[in-house]
């Protein structure tokens, strides 16, 4: 790692910090003094192992603790830490982003612009709350891009089969069926991109769009896929994130992430209408096979009751979005005993597609539509958990793969109703 020769490792847009480098590691932080040390240390070590000249760009939202000072101490002279400004918005307790990073789009944009100014060959985005981030993880993200093999490398964490159910049941299958790439975690907060893709990102117009703070990661992944850039996934092991003091509830989180997905669908309708099938995304890196993510504490019976409560109270609301045939099938599911409580893949795919149509046609205010999806999602999760064998990671992986295939099979259902909605109106 080339030394900057500067007595201070923190620079704000000065000549030293504008020196070209191979790799830039971008970190968005705010009062993360407890965890930033590990992240910066891993970033520094990861770049050193790859013999890459690099620097850390810290998009710090005016932390009131020693986040920036700690980052400087850990980085030392090997890896300059450059602070960039971005406008961190006032935090509304009722509208916390699901990832806990207000102003993420603005911070990410500032990092990418700084990376472009330094003519970096690759830019890696990391979360400042990863206390157990390993240097190998940084290498896994950087290496494929620096070798010229990939343009976009997304993080792929080992998760418990019941974790990340929104991603597994909605984000991944829709992404796969509509955009044609089997990217397991499209909304991952960590990724690496090449110079050409970085320029393409900065040309997009969604940075200031409504929903950008929560959907920007997914929108960038969609931009990479639809722009036909070379995609990859890096295995980074089990993701351990420092707990946030306040986390949004399920309804808010689902509304944000699924809402961002549906907004993206609408903007790229001309593209995904022409996509047929899907291709697997290459996976790189190694993980510790013995590492097992902790099992979440969740009762499928409570989820089933939540679905039944939703059916009883929201049936009329669902009838504004879903066709009568789907309502009848949901009634059968609601009346089924636990051992036969199943929401089949085709039914689930049609439900999600109908909600996408409802969002597109403004069947009702978007907040109401996405709120009405929550009991259905809990029903799917209960169905998934009650299915024998889904607690096994390999079996769950295959199960989700079949779900993705069902979404691909049902895609003509969505396309026909998207193009000619009046034909299918009851």
């Amino acid at each position: 790692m080339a030394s900057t020769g500067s007595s201070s490792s923190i620079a704000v847009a000065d000549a030293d910090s504008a020196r070209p480098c191979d790799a830039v590691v971008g970190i968005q932080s705010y009062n993360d003094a407890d965890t930033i040390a590990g992240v910066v240390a891993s970033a520094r070590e990861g770049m050193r192992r790859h013999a890459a000249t690099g620097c850390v760009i810290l998009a710090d939202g005016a932390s009131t603790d020693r986040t920036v000072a700690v980052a400087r101490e850990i980085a030392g002279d090997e890896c300059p830490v450059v602070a960039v400004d971005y406008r961190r918005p006032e935090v509304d307790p009722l509208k916390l982003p699901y990832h806990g990073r207000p102003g993420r789009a603005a911070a990410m944009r500032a990092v990418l612009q700084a990376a472009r100014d330094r003519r970096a060959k690759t830019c890696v985005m990391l979360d400042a709350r990863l206390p157990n981030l390993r240097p190998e993880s940084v290498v896994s993200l950087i290496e494929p891009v620096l070798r010229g093999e990939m343009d976009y490398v997304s993080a792929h964490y080992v998760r418990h089969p019941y974790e990340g159910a929104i991603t597994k049941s909605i984000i991944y299958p829709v992404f796969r069926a509509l955009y044609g790439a089997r990217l397991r975690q499209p909304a991952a907060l960590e990724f690496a991109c090449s110079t050409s893709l970085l320029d393409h990102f900065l040309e997009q117009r969604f940075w200031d769009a409504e929903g950008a703070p929560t959907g920007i990661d997914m929108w960038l992944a969609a931009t990479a896929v639809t722009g036909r850039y070379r995609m990859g996934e890096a295995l980074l092991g089990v993701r351990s994130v420092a707990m946030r003091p306040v986390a949004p509830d399920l309804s808010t989180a689902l509304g944000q992430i699924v809402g961002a997905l549906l907004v993206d669908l609408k903007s790229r309708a001309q593209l995904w209408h022409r996509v047929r099938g899907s291709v697997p995304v290459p996976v790189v890196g190694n993980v510790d096979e013995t590492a097992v993510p902790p099992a979440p504490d969740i009762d499928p019976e409570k989820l089933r009751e939540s679905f039944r409560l939703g059916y009883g109270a929201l049936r009329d609301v669902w009838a504004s979005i879903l066709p009568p045939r789907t309502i009848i099938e949901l009634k059968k599911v609601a009346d089924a005993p636990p051992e036969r409580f199943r929401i089949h893949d085709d039914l689930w795919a049609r439900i999600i597609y109908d909600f996408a149509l409802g969002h597109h046609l403004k069947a009702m205010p978007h907040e109401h539509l996405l709120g009405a999806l929550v009991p259905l999602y809990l029903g799917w999760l209960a169905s998934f958990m009650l299915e024998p064998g889904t607690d096994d990671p390999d079996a769950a992986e295959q199960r989700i793969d079949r779900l993705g295939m069902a979404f691909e099979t049902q895609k003509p259902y969505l396309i026909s109703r998207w193009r000619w909605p009046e034909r299918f109106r009851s």
Partner: protein
Amino acid sequence: MWQQVERILTEAAQRSVESVAAFMPGVLALMMILLFALILGALVRVVVFRALRGLEFDRHASRWGMGAFGDWSQSHSLSAAVARLAQWMILVLGLLTGLTALDAAVPSEFALSMFRYVPHMLAALLVLVVGAILAQFLSRAVLIGAVNMQLQSARLMSVFVRWVLLIITASMALEQLGIGRQILVLAFGILFGGIILAAALAVGLGSQDAVRRALERKARQPSEPPGTPIDHV
């Protein structure tokens, strides 16, 4: 004497004929205006109905919670009901205009007072429409929010919100029409205040044990589930 009687009778008959002759043009004008209003009303009904059907007014109205108003029409279509309402408004306006054509003080004053009442009617109609839309929006928001909070009484809460808003809206519309203002304000105040007082007494006195047990149960529950909390995203 008989000559005087004959003269008086002749003068009376002449005055009657003159009165009728003076009145007839106004009657003819009234009949012509009514005929024109009939034709125009029928035409407006057809045009409005077709225009609303083309705009899918029924679908949009049921989305905004006004589909029930269509049941007032025989065809259960809100578009037909609005078209018929437009026709009747033309007829009523035609009648009022015709009355002003009569050279009669009382009918003319009546017609003018009705014309002055039309803005209040339109304002009341606007209040009803906005109130219905707001009631639908807020009741649905309460329903979805309560379901997602796992509240078993979600539907009851939603119905309560809807009816409170509809009662407020109806009261405002009636006040705009000037119908029973004093009584309306009193009745609404008594009703609403009574509901709130009854609810407060029920919770404060009648349900104190149940509330205490529920609060103790809530306090004993951990704020987060034991073990690892689930990350849904």
